[in-house]
């Protein structure tokens, strides 16, 4: 009996210690933000800290709302699914507002715009988007022009969805004989950085990715460049996403965002990471 009581006591003490760990020391509520920290300059790791435009804006918003910002670094796909399923309070990862995404999550006002660009190796025969895709009358890519070209993207990003719409065949390459396009012509990597390193070792012929991370990648890697003048085809709005129907949080975020825009904080953060002179970083 003594033994039993002592076990119970130990358990109680252990539990209360755990409970104490969970308590907020400053009484603030957590604001959990999901991101994919391999997308400079919006979010990237500096040492073990996640920094970047999104991280700083989120911190400013949390500050306005009187909440504690907690950043979770997960796959880009997991950011979207996690927010849609309510696992995270909000998602901020250079997320483009699309019609499909609007169906399953709510978006805040936009805080930045992005454009999709093409990165190629120096001396690549690809000089424009027309060298990669064939387009229909609406300007959507419907096929790959040259079935030998491989396009590298980060999985589940707008670059992936855009490129994938050009791929209609079956996976087994030859199962559908009249399909000249093989589905493995779009190679989807976990991060943009992996796609770029695949480009450098000729595993893919071009990488389609958002403009700003593309600039960072080109600045830190030799022998690759962004195709100039070929980046106007997909202008996108970045916004914060929250679980569908969470209008209370969304209103608060929108209000904080409006305040931060008004007092110039957003501009200041953006300018800090993206120099106005055209990104000669």
């Amino acid at each position: 009996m003594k033994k039993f009581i002592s076990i119970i006591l130990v358990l109680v003490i252990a539990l209360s210690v755990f409970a104490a760990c969970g308590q907020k020391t400053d009484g603030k509520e957590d604001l959990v933000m999901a991101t994919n920290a391999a997308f400079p300059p919006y979010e990237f790791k500096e040492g073990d800290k996640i920094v970047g435009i999104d991280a700083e804006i989120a911190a400013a918003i949390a500050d306005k709302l009187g909440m504690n910002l907690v950043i979770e670094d997960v796959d880009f796909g997991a950011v979207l699914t996690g927010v849609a399923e309510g696992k995270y309070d909000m998602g901020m990862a250079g997320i483009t507002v699309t019609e499909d995404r609007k169906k399953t999550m709510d978006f805040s006002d936009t805080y930045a715009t992005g454009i999709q660009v093409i990165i190629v190796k120096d001396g690549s025969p690809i000089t424009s988007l027309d060298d990669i895709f064939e387009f229909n009358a609406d300007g959507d890519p419907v096929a790959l022009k040259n079935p030998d070209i491989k396009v590298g993207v980060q999985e589940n990003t707008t670059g992936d969805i855009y490129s994938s719409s050009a791929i209609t065949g079956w996976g087994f390459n030859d199962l559908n004989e009249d399909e000249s396009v093989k589905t493995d012509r779009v190679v989807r990597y976990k991060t943009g950085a992996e796609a770029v390193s695949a480009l450098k070792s000729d595993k893919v012929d071009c990488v389609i990715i958002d403009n700003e991370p593309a600039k960072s990648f080109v600045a830190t890697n030799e022998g690759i460049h962004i195709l100039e003048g070929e980046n106007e085809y997909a202008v996108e709005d970045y916004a914060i996403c929250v679980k569908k129907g969470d209008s209370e949080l969304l209103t608060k975020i929108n209000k904080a965002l409006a305040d931060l825009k008004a007092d110039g904080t957003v501009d200041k953060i953006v300018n800090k990471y993206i120099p106005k002179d055209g990104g000669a970083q």
Partner: protein
Amino acid sequence: MVLTNSFWDTAPPWLIKMKEDFILNFVDAGRWKWLVEGLGNTLLITLFALLIGLVIGVVIAAVRSTYDKNRESMEMQKGFGYYLLKIVNGICNLYLTVIRGTPVVVQLLIMYFIVFASSRDSLMVAIIAFGINSGAYVAEILRGGIMSIDNGQFEAGRSLGFNYVQTMIHIIIPQVFKNVLPTLCNEFIVLLKETSVAGYVGIVDLTKAGDLIRGRTFSAFMPLIAVALIYLAMVVILTALVSALERRLRKSER
């Protein structure tokens, strides 16, 4: 059609939600094709990696067990064969240490980005990477099986006039095969599931197919459960086949 319509009219809301989820995740935009493609690639990688693994495993197990079994007698002769075997055995040991000492994802990425840096066929790279990985485990399973056979069996073979190789083929290997089958089956199951990291090098395998659907529909339940069920079904079928084989082999025991 009338019948089905009336069923969905009276169905509980959660079931209707399930139906909508199912249609969104698998039917819309032909998303089920992702899963078929992924399943195909998973099976392709597993099958060929298994074959490569078996070949590597048999060769290495042969070298290692021959060395272990004959070391003492060969040490006395100190012939050329002894030194050759010693070197080859050392290389095999190094291979086992490196392969079993590093995670398969790391090996896959090394293969993809460094060893086969110029290859564009990621499926081929994955098959080789998983094959080389599996070979190490198969080798040790086989060696364990050979070493577990009683030495009296060898001695009996030798006293019947068989040489070392003949003893192996006619007396030892048949017993080994029966003994290692469950463990080997285990290794194949592990291999099948390990291929789920192939997505790291841009291959659309079954897991990645689920991820891609998830990233486009933003619902977690349907794609993940579907992928899990497909893996489960494959393993159940594989296990059933192996136990059928085991039963047949056991017939000779009585």
